[in-house]
């Protein structure tokens, strides 16, 4: 089992809530177009690829940024290189993150031809006022068109990303978004509570008092709503913020949560190989410089202690329905979960403990309590 994450650090413009490692062309170079700044980016990624293990690959994920800004033939070069170098499994999952505004039928056909078999659209909301607060550019109607085109192109697995808890979003706004998303008959939904990251435009607006975050109780209700609605449509939770139809779980993401081995290509990308985590320099220019100079783009690394590895296991496993194996818990850790069983946050399975819906909402607190 080996996976690649390929980071595409470009966006047409930056959304107000986003603190991801992504850049607009003008942030990188005055007056430049995307074509100019990204011209040799794929070359750089291919250079880094040469330094990675040669294990057969079972999942590949292009994330960003906005990967769908890059033409199919360019992303295709990366896929071809991996195929030739590592080989890929017969059922290899190859995902593209896409902005509903930046796709056309022709482009989507191209991605299918390049080998992609899974697409995830950033829908976020179907309410204009919510999209506006989030600073998203797309027209909510484009999501349906994009999903239809992806289906025509032949994507066997289609997902949308949603965000809840934006300032000014009501429970009924959210209900409408969820209903709309589910009506697209997609295979997979990711729904994230909005996190206000320091240094973003949104954080500044909140600090200035222009926007107010909804309280945690409303966020909790929003979570329970999407969980219930998904279940009714046959999408089951397989991770805290992810629901899918049977067979449509994102295997790439599962490999993160199960601490499998993966290599992240591109600036700021994180990798995990055995007990080592490492990450690349963050800025695309620094990344390119290093790679083209024949240097490693790795900025820093950490080797996990056994204790840290166990902590990560609990922290990640608790986020999935299978839960944490009892055998992996110390007596004290297990005892500390008892009161959460009493309070209905945790259920005891024959050889594991797992979260109930209300328990999922306090997963971090529970993890903390278990770790002591």
């Amino acid at each position, binding site marked *: 089992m080996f996976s690649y*994450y390929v980071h595409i650090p470009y966006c047409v413009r930056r959304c107000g809530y986003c603190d991801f490692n992504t850049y607009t062309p003008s942030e990188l170079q005055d007056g430049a177009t995307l074509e100019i700044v990204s011209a040799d980016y794929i070359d750089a990624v291919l250079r880094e690829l040469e330094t990675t293990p040669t294990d057969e690959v079972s999942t590949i994920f292009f994330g960003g940024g906005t990967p769908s800004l890059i033409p199919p033939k360019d992303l295709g070069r990366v896929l071809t290189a991996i195929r030739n170098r590592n080989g890929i499994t017969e059922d290899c999952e190859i995902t593209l993150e896409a902005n509903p505004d930046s796709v056309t039928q022709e482009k989507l056909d191209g991605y299918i031809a390049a080998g992609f078999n899974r697409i995830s659209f950033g829908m976020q909301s179907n309410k204009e006022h919510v999209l506006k607060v989030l600073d998203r550019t797309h027209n909510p109607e484009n999501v349906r068109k994009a999903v239809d085109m992806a289906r025509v192109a032949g994507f066997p697995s289609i997902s949308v990303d949603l965000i809840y808890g934006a300032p000014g979003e009501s429970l009924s706004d959210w209900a409408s978004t969820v209903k709309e998303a589910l009506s697209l008959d997609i295979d997979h939904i990711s*729904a*994230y*509570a909005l*996190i206000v990251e320091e240094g973003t435009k949104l954080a500044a607006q909140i600090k200035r008092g222009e926007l107010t975050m909804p309280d*945690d*109780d409303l*966020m*909790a209700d929003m*979570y329970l709503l999407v969980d219930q609605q998904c279940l009714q449509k046959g999408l089951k939770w397989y991770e*805290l*913020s992810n629901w899918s139809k049977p067979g449509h779980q994102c295997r790439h*993401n599962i490999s*993160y*949560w199960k601490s499998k081995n*993966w290599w*992240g290509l591109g600036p*700021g*990308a*994180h*990798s*995990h190989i055995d007990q080592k*985590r490492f*990450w690349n320099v963050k800025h695309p220019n620094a990344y390119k410089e290093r790679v083209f100079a024949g240097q490693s783009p790795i900025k820093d690394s*950490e080797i996990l202690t056994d204790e*840290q590895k166990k*902590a*990560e296991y609990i*922290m*990640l496993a608790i*986020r999935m329905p299978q839960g944490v194996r009892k055998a992996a818990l110390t007596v004290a850790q297990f005892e500390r979960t008892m*009161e*959460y069983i009493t*309070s209905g*946050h945790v259920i005891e399975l024959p050889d594991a403990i797992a979260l109930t819906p*209300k328990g*999922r*909402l*306090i*997963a*971090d*607190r529970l*993890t*903390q309590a278990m*770790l*002591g």
Partner: protein
Amino acid sequence: MPAISIAKAPQPASTNPAQIRNFCIIAHIDHGKSTLADRMLQITEVVEARLMRAQYLDRMDIERERGITIKSQAVRLPWKSGIDGQEYILNMIDTPGHVDFTYEVSRSLAACEGAVLLVDCAQGIEAQTLANLYLAMENNLTIIPVLNKIDLPNAQPDKFAAELAGLIGCKVEEVLRVSGKTGDGVAELLDQIVAQIPAPVGDPEAPARALIFDSVYDAYRGVVTYVRVVDGHLSPREQIQMFSTGVKHEALEIGVISPEPLPSKGLGVGEVGYLITGVKDVRQSRVGDTITNYARPTKEALGGYKDPKPMVFSGLFPLDGADFPVLRDALEKLQLNDAALVYEPESSAALGFGFRCGFLGLLHMEIVRERLEREAKLNLISTAPNVVYRVTMEDGKEIIVTNPSEFPEGKVNNVKEPIVKSTILAPSEFIGTIMELCQERRGVMLGMDYISEDRVEIRYTLPLAEIVFDFFDQLKSRTRGYASLDYEEMGDEEGNLVKVDILLQGEAVDAFSAIVHRDKAYSYGVMMTGKLRELIPRQQFEVPIQAAIGSRIIARESIRAIRKDVLAKCYGGDISRKRKLLEKQKEGKKRMKMVGRVEVPQEAFVAALATDADIEKIKAARKLEN
């Protein structure tokens, strides 16, 4: 030139009492006493100009910063009178200016024949100054009224001269006018001290009797005791005896302060100076005690000796439990220099190990806490201050309660609390406001007098507990800072008092228990439960917060169960970040205190116990950090 060089001036141990004048300065904190003292040091040339610094006599940093003098000193100033041309020795005895130190003030006054009543002529007399003035008059001291700060643009010397003249019964023209800042009128003041204040009288042949009016611990010399010789003579190397304890010491060094310590051949009748015996603890050399010769002791002590009695108690706990030994050592060290400080170990379920400390009053408490924090670099939580209650049970047993958690459970017959007689001076426009405040605080009015056309003296009896709460802050804020307060003990009185407990999930939190008047129990309960509801983070279960008198619940709030505590997203790069966050939270958890099953951050205890002034301090500190 009226100054005399020290070498030529009359020498200690051989100064004729007729040439001596002993005086103190009675003044409010910011009325310019230290600045006036600086000018006196300069004009008498005991301090060279190049060595002069502001507030010369206030040695401790804490005094200089807060602008108050905690420990008095006595300075020997040679002076040639501009009136009769004779040489004199003036001993200036500095006095503390705050209500907590009334007893120390009274001993300083007892060492003098006269007092300079110093009043800021932009502000007029303050209540504590008035109280000290009355004290001085009771001691038959000659009072020289002086208006200071005549250089200020908003000075009203005529108005306040009339006020002072009315208070001490002199003519308006007899009120001197000086500026400590410019030195105007200071030489004339020294001449008037010589002219008006009587010389000390004593029997040089009698067994020695010297009054201890201050006692200071010095890290190098041990305890330095300040004395005024009344009769006889004290000489170095002789054996002396403390009258109250009978303990014998050797006078290793005797001298005068000029204003640096200057060893002398001794001290004779009427002289003021210091002595060092090598003792390490001020409690062995107590203010108010009489020193006599061991070989030829006096039969009769000088009057007025009292043991300092703590009036206000509070628990002091280190924020970090590991600092307990540091706190213990720091208190031990502090007690060497503070005979009034008492303490004993206390353990609180909520706050851990600390000490129950007794203080003379609120300022004393604040000073002790500040010195502990500053000198021992400690972070402390203090519980709400309380007074001493005497609880009589139905079976007649009496229990002294200095800590609400010691309040007995069983059948209580009555509870007595200390009562004080308080004097408030304020502009007459605030009469209504002040009466309202005193009424709210269970005050009983004793009387009211106009001390000038628009200033009044209002007298109330009040329970000390009410003053200890936040009376002074309230008085200041409701009178825009114009009112001043003084009070003196008046014994105990029965009160309708109850203990209010604060319960978290049914468990009493000892640090929040309080003894309050029954009429105020409800508002205390509502205030405290409300505060805690804001301060304690939500838990995974609902947490009821209750206020109770015994088993009766009088107020209730609840902290709703937490519903969301999860980061929604956790992909590749988030994993390290999230694990590190967990590790950090684990560290933070060490600062959590468990009350039953409820996790309470230490900050919540601190904030719940903090006064408004503390909160301002915390906010200011945070601002600095940001």
